[in-house]
C-alpha cells in the first residue's frame, strides 16, 4: 500500500486547519471551502485506505521518531479493521458536521476559528485512530482535549460556556494524569511504546504490573469517555455549539477512550480486577445517566446523558471481554447520536430554546422542522434499540457479550482465555444493561412526546409562525431550577432548515437505519474486526426488545395520564408547586405533561440535578481548592509581602533616626566630630 495515503488522512485536516487559521481574517470567503474540502477528502481517503487494506489484514509500519534512552518513540501506523471502521466513521461525521456548521454558524463572526478547530480536532482523532505508537497517540489525545476546551468555550461571552469549558478541560486532564503514567508503565514493562510490541508482550505475559497499568489507563478512559466518577463535564459541555456536541461529545472524542481500551484489550484481559472495576464503572454510569436523562429539561442535556449511558454500554462490552460488540456499538452510536445532535440543533434553532417544556408549548413545531422531526424519530428508535435499526443490533451484541461473560464463556475472540473475564463482571454488565435498555426507551419516548407531541401545541394549532421571542423571555421560559445550558443563537426561525443543515441529517440517517444489518453475516462486519459473531442471540434479543417496548409503553402511559390530568384542569400534584416565581417573569405556568415526573416520583428532583454529583464534587474538590487558593493568597499578601514591606518601612525608620541628627547646627556637628576623634584616639592609643 502506498504509505502516503494513510499519512494524508490525519495530515489533510491539520493542514486545512492551519490554512483556515492563516486566511480566516483576510479572506473570510475561503473559510467554508477550506473547512469542508480537506475534511471531506480525508474522509474519502480513509475509505480508500480501508478498502485497500481489506478485511483481516493489518498494516504496521514505523520509523523511529526520536531516541529517548528508554523505549524509543516512533512515528508509525497500526491499521486494522478497527482503525478502518472508526476512521471512516470519524470522516463521515466530521464532514457532515462541517457542512452543517456552514449553515448553523452562518452569522457567527468567529466561524473561521471554529472551523479550523473542528478540522484540527478531526486530524487529532484520526491520528489517535491510526497511530501505532502510544506516545504519538497521546499527542492526538491531548490535542483533542484542547480543541474540545476551545470549542465548548466558543461562546465565551456567556458565563456558562466559560465555566463549562474549564470544567471539561480540568476533569479530562484529571483523568489524563494517571493515563500518562499508565502509558509510561506499559512502555517500561513492555520495553516499547509501539502497540504491536505492547500487545505481543501482553500475550506472552511479559507485563509485570497488568492490574496497575489497566487501572491507571482506566483513569484516562473514564475522563475522556465520561464514565462515572469523571462524567460530570459532558452534560455541561452542551454549552458549546450543537455541531460540536455532535462531533466531539457524541461521535468521536468520547469514543477515543473506548477505542483505546479495545486496542489494548489483551492488557486489560490480564487483570480480572480491572475488568470488574470497568464493569462497575460502566454499570453505575449507565443506570445513573439514564435516570438523569429521564429528568432533564434541556434537550441537549438529555442527549448528553444519553451519550454517557451509551458509552457505559461500550465500556460494559469491553468489561465482558468483547471488543467487537463494543466497537460495533461505538460506530452505530456514533452515527445515530451525531444525527440526534444535528437534528436537535435544527430544532433548537427553530424553537429558540433548549427547553423541551418550552418546546411543548409551541404550536406546530414539528411542522416547521419536518426533516429534523423525522430523522430525530429514526435516531431515537435506534437509540431505544428496536429492530431493524442499527441500535438494536449493536445493543444486542453488547447484551450477548455480557450474557456469555456471565456464563463464564466470554467472547474474547482469541485475545485471551474466556476465563480471563470474571463472571461477576458479566453479571453486573448484563443486569445494568437490561435495566438501562428499559430506562433508555423511557427517556427517548419522553423526549419525543414532550418536545413534539404536546397537547398544548396541538390544541393551540395556531396557523401563524411563532413570533420571534426575545432572549430574555427565552431565558425565563425554561423550568426554574433545572440545569440549563443555553447557547447564543442568532438564527432566524423562518429559515430553520437550510439545505446545508437538512442533508447531513439524511446522510447520517442511512447508517442509523442500515448499519446494523452488516452484522448479520460473519463475513461482513465481523470479518473486518475479530471474526466473532455479532448476530443477535435469541434470549437477549427478545428480552432486550421486550424491555425497550415496556419502557416506551410506560413512558407513553405516564405521558397520557399526565396529559389527561393537565387537560382536566388539575395539574399533577408534583407540578403544582413548580410555578416559577422569578420577579418580573411573565406569568407562564410551567406545567407540562412530563412523564418523567410521574415515572421517577421522588427521584425526579435528584435526577434532574445529576444526583448531586456536581454538588458533591463542589464540596469535596472545588471548595478545598478555592480555600487553598485563598490560603496561598493570604500567605502571599500578608506574610511574604509583609517582609517586603517591612524592609521598606525599616529603611524609612532608620532614615528618620539619622535625620534627627541633622539639626543644621554646625556646633553640634563639630562636637560630635571632636568626640569621635577623641574616642578614636583613645582606642588607637590604648
Amino acid at each position, binding site marked *: 500500500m502506498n504509505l502516503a495515503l494513510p499519512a494524508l488522512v490525519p495530515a489533510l485536516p491539520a493542514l486545512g486547519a492551519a490554512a483556515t487559521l492563516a486566511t480566516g481574517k483576510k479572506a473570510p470567503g475561503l473559510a467554508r471551502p477550506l473547512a469542508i474540502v480537506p475534511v471531506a477528502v480525508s474522509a474519502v481517503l480513509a475509505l480508500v485506505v480501508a478498502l485497500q487494506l481489506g478485511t483481516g489484514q493489518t498494516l504496521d509500519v514505523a520509523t523511529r521518531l526520536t531516541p529517548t534512552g528508554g523505549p524509543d518513540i516512533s512515528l508509525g501506523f497500526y491499521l486494522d479493521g478497527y482503525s478502518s471502521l472508526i476512521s471512516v466513521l470519524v470522516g463521515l461525521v466530521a464532514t457532515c458536521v462541517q457542512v452543517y456548521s456552514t449553515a448553523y454558524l452562518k452569522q457567527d463572526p468567529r466561524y473561521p476559528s471554529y472551523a479550523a478547530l473542528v478540522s484540527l480536532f478531526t486530524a487529532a482523532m484520526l491520528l489517535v485512530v491510526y497511530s501505532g505508537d502510544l506516545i504519538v497517540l497521546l499527542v492526538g489525545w491531548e490535542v483533542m482535549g484542547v480543541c474540545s476546551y476551545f470549542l465548548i468555550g466558543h461562546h465565551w461571552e456567556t458565563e456558562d460556556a466559560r465555566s463549562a469549558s474549564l470544567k471539561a478541560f480540568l476533569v479530562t486532564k484529571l483523568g489524563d494524569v494517571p493515563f500518562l503514567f499508565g502509558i509510561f508503565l506499559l512502555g517500561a514493562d513492555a520495553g516499547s511504546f509501539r502497540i504491536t510490541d505492547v500487545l505481543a508482550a501482553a500475550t506472552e505475559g511479559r507485563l509485570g504490573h497488568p492490574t496497575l497499568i489497566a487501572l491507571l489507563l482506566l483513569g484516562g478512559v473514564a475522563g475522556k469517555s465520561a464514565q462515572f466518577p469523571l462524567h460530570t463535564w459532558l452534560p455541561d459541555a452542551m454549552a458549546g455549539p450543537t455541531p460540536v456536541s455532535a462531533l466531539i461529545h457524541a461521535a468521536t472524542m468520547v469514543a477515543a477512550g473506548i477505542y483505546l481500551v479495545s486496542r489494548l484489550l489483551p492488557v486489560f484481559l490480564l487483570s480480572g480486577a480491572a475488568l470488574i472495576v470497568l464493569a462497575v464503572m460502566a454499570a453505575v454510569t449507565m443506570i445513573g445517566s439514564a435516570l438523569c436523562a429521564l429528568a432533564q429539561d434541556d434537550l441537549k442535556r438529555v442527549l448528553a446523558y444519553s451519550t454517557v449511558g451509551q458509552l457505559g454500554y461500550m465500556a460494559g462490552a469491553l468489561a465482558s471481554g468483547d471488543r467487537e460488540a463494543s466497537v460495533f456499538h461505538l460506530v452505530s452510536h456514533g452515527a445515530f447520536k451525531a444525527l440526534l445532535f444535528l437534528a436537535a440543533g435544527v430544532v433548537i434553532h427553530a424553537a429558540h430554546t433548549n427547553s423541551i417544556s418550552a418546546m411543548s408549548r409551541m404550536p406546530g413545531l414539528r411542522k416547521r422542522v419536518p426533516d429534523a422531526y423525522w430523522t430525530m424519530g429514526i435516531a431515537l428508535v435506534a437509540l431505544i434499540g428496536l429492530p431493524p435499526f442499527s441500535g438494536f443490533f449493536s445493543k444486542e451484541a453488547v447484551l450477548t457479550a455480557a450474557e456469555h461473560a456471565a456464563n463464564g464463556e466470554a467472547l474474547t475472540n482469541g485475545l485471551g482465555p474466556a476465563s480471563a473475564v470474571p463472571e461477576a463482571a458479566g453479571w453486573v454488565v448484563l443486569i445494568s444493561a437490561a435495566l438501562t435498555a428499559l430506562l433508555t426507551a423511557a427517556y427517548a419516548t419522553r423526549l419525543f412526546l414532550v418536545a413534539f407531541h404536546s397537547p398544548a401545541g396541538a390544541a393551540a394549532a395556531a396557523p401563524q409562525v411563532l413570533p420571534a421571542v426575545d432572549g430574555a423571555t427565552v431565558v425565563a421560559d425554561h423550568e426554574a431550577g433545572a440545569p440549563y445550558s443555553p447557547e447564543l443563537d442568532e438564527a432566524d426561525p423562518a429559515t430553520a432548515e437550510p439545505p446545508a443543515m437538512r442533508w447531513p441529517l439524511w446522510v447520517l440517517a442511512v447508517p442509523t437505519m442500515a448499519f446494523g444489518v452488516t452484522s448479520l453475516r460473519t463475513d461482513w462486519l465481523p470479518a473486518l474486526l475479530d471474526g466473532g459473531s455479532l448476530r443477535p442471540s435469541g434470549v437477549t434479543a427478545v428480552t432486550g426488545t421486550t424491555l425497550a417496548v415496556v419502557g416506551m409503553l410506560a413512558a407513553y402511559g405516564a405521558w397520557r395520564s399526565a396529559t389527561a390530568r393537565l387537560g382536566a384542569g388539575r395539574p399533577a400534584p408534583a407540578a403544582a408547586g413548580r410555578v416559577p416565581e422569578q420577579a418580573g417573569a411573565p406569568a407562564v405556568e410551567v406545567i407540562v405533561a412530563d412523564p418523567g415526573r410521574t415515572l421517577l416520583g421522588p427521584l425526579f428532583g435528584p435526577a434532574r440535578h445529576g444526583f448531586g454529583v456536581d454538588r458533591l464534587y463542589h464540596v469535596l474538590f472545588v471548595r478545598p481548592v478555592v480555600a487553598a487558593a485563598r490560603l496561598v493568597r493570604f500567605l502571599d*499578601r500578608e506574610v511574604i509581602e509583609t517582609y517586603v514591606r517591612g524592609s521598606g518601612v525599616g529603611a524609612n525608620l532608620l532614615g528618620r533616626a539619622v535625620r534627627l541628627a*541633622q539639626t543644621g*547646627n*554646625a*556646633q553640634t556637628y563639630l562636637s560630635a566630630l571632636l568626640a569621635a576623634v577623641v574616642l578614636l584616639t583613645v582606642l588607637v592609643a590604648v
Partner: protein
Amino acid sequence: MHLAYPVVLAALLFSVGVYGVLARRNAVLVLMSVELMLNAVNLNLVAFDAWLRDSLHAGQALTLFTITVAAAEIGLGLAIVLLLFRARGTADIDRATALGDPAESLAVEEAPNGAEELKGQAAA
C-alpha cells in the same frame, strides 16, 4: 627655656579655642576662637623649631604660611558673617540652621507612599 612651657601654653590656648568654637553663639567670637586654635598651633611650630634646632627653620617658615592663610581665612569668614548678618539680622550661629533636615518635612515625603499603598489595595 624648657619645652614644656610653650607646649602647655599652646595646649591651653587650643583648648580655649575649642571651647570657643563649640560653645560661643556669636559667629565673630567663633572665628576668633578659630584664630586662637591656629595660633596655638603656630606657637607649637615655633617652639619645636627652636627645640629641634632645625637648620632650615621649617617650623618658622610654616608659621608664616599659617599666619597668611589665617589672615585670608578670617577675611573670608568675616565677610560671610557680615552677609549672614545682613540677610538675617543676627550673627547668632545657633539660629543659622537652614541647611538642617528637620523632622517636620517627613509628613510631606510620606504622602506618595500612602498613595502607593492605596493603589496596591485597588489592584487587589
